[in-house]
């Protein structure tokens, strides 16, 4: 565990939304650090601010107040282009559903991120096939997302998230659209990646299957951290 060198930090983060002149406070006074190797879940009921916090920590949104630091760098000081580059090189994402680009095959979805990074064709092809094998989808590289089951699609999303060799993978309700058997397979896969490759995961989920596997659970309620359970890294 390397708690002294957190990958992601939220420091005094507050997020408010304004809709038709009405301000809604989504998060307030959030302080959270995620260190390398963690398998942590942001938990809490709907509307507690899990996804909002995950989006802020994933550089998809900017806080109203406070700082998000990625490898010590304050994301608030970066331009949109620099934020894109940080997402491309340091962050991996898995979303609830419809994660993949439907006009690309499974392998092309994985390669796309590497292509944006400038990885040479041969290298990215080889790595895409290796990643597909690592998520038990060997031989399905040419399938389009619509030709695959929900579980297979999510495993491709995991492979894509790993493709850029990110510092951390952020997963927003990754099991929400999966049956429990498929969800368990997916979570066990992520857990194995966390153990074997020290891949850091930060989840947003209220799925008990996710929460019982997370080593640390950060419970949110009404936009504030209610309690933290468990330890940190493997």
């Amino acid at each position, binding site marked *: 565990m390397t708690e002294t060198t957190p990958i992601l930090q939220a420091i005094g983060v507050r997020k408010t939304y304004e809709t038709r002149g009405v301000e809604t406070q989504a998060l307030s006074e959030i302080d959270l650090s995620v260190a390398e190797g963690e398998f942590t879940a942001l938990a809490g009921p709907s509307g507690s601010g899990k996804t909002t916090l995950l*989006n802020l920590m994933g550089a998809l*949104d900017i806080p109203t107040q406070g700082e998000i630091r990625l490898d010590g760098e304050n994301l608030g000081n970066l331009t949109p282009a620099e934020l894109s580059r940080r997402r*491309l090189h340091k962050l991996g*994402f898995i979303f609830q559903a*419809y994660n993949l680009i*439907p006009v*690309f095959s499974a392998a092309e979805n994985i390669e*796309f991120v590497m292509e*944006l990074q400038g990885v040479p064709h041969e290298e990215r092809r080889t790595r895409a096939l290796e990643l597909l094998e690592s998520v038990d989808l060997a031989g399905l590289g040419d399938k389009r997302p619509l030709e695959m089951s929900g579980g297979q699609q999510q495993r491709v999303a995991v492979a894509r998230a790993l493709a850029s060799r990110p510092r951390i993978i952020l997963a*927003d309700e990754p099991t929400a659209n999966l049956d429990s058997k498929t969800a368990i397979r997916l979570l066990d896969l992520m857990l194995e990646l966390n153990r074997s490759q020290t891949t850091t995961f930060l989840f947003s989920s209220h799925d008990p299957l996710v929460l019982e596997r997370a080593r640390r659970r950060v419970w949110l309620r009404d936009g504030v951290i209610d309690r933290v359970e468990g330890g940190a890294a493997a």
Partner: protein
Amino acid sequence: MLSVIRLAWRNVGRNPRRTGVVVTAVAVGLAGTLLSMAIFSGMMFQMVDNAIKTDLGHLQIHAQGFNKDPEIGLFLEDKGAPEIEAIQAEAGIQNWAPRIRGEGLVTSPSSSVGVRVIGVDPDAEAQVSMVSGSIVQGGYFDQKRRLVLGEGLARRLGTEVGDKIVLSVQDLEGDMNGTALRVGGIFRTPSAELDRSTVFLELAPAADLFGMGDSISEIVIVGHSRDAVLETQARLSAALPDREIERWDELQPLLASILSVMDQMASGLYLIIFVAMSFGIANVLLMAIYERIREIGILLAVGLSRGRLVAMVICESILVTLLGLVAGFTLALLALFALSDGIDMSLWAESLASFGMGTRIFPVLTPADFTIPTTVALLTALIASAWPALRAVRLRPAEAVRHD
């Protein structure tokens, strides 16, 4: 960038019906415009070609001032010997012919008509003019002391081949001079103006009539092509500095203006059509963006920059337009191939003849007919993509990934 182009190409193909509608609209619009312009160009080219082949040639050599005021007193001495020497030294000239050109009055038993009188060397003239090949009655100077006139003029005079008519002119000294000649041939060219108001006679009787001795009015020159004569003109002008060496479009500026107006009209027409199409393209792209908000959010989340996102939308617009261009050009070329034997316009023969055109129009496409619409279409595609691209780039990734 290749990944963005590939993604754009796949996106173009994800809704074939919608893409098909836009491609069809671009293709039909382009093909229709191209075909109209090809027919119109064909008419204009024929008008110019007929003017060149009946009267103007590509170049004419005159004494200084002749073009401004075509006086019979402005002539080339010694049958144009120095000019002919310069012509013979010039490789860019195919054929040439000397002419005497003046005004006169032709009188038949029933009528008198003011005419242009052109004295020609029949053999040389046959190489530069289509008149010899346009005889519909009689012959082309196959007997001595004959004149050849147009069908329209023959009708006005009420004469036929073999009839005697009197040709009166003002000679070089300013005296009235006349001679009686028989009609040897009647011609019909695509130029109603020529047919109605011109008589041709041989060079020697014309010289006698105008009292010009060994002098001629002009030498008409035909080069290898309209464009190639520019250099020939420059070299002849240098060799004959005291002569007017003028091109067909300088001799008939109206024709040149018509061609120039036609080019501008074509550009304007393409612009109007493609601007109208741009709304269709923008609409389709906007629909495509709205349908893919979540997907765009995912793309932004995995690290696609906003610049590349804009490039993707522009690529989609350009690809759809390019497909339309290819289909449009193919459609137009197929239609033109089907019309390669010309379009019969004999229903409007009289009107066309008054503009110097024949009754069979051959559509003509120039390189500009491909480059102008391609340029305009691609610019339009760029403009049409601006709005959808702006819409896409303004999407906030956090909201877009949650979009239903």
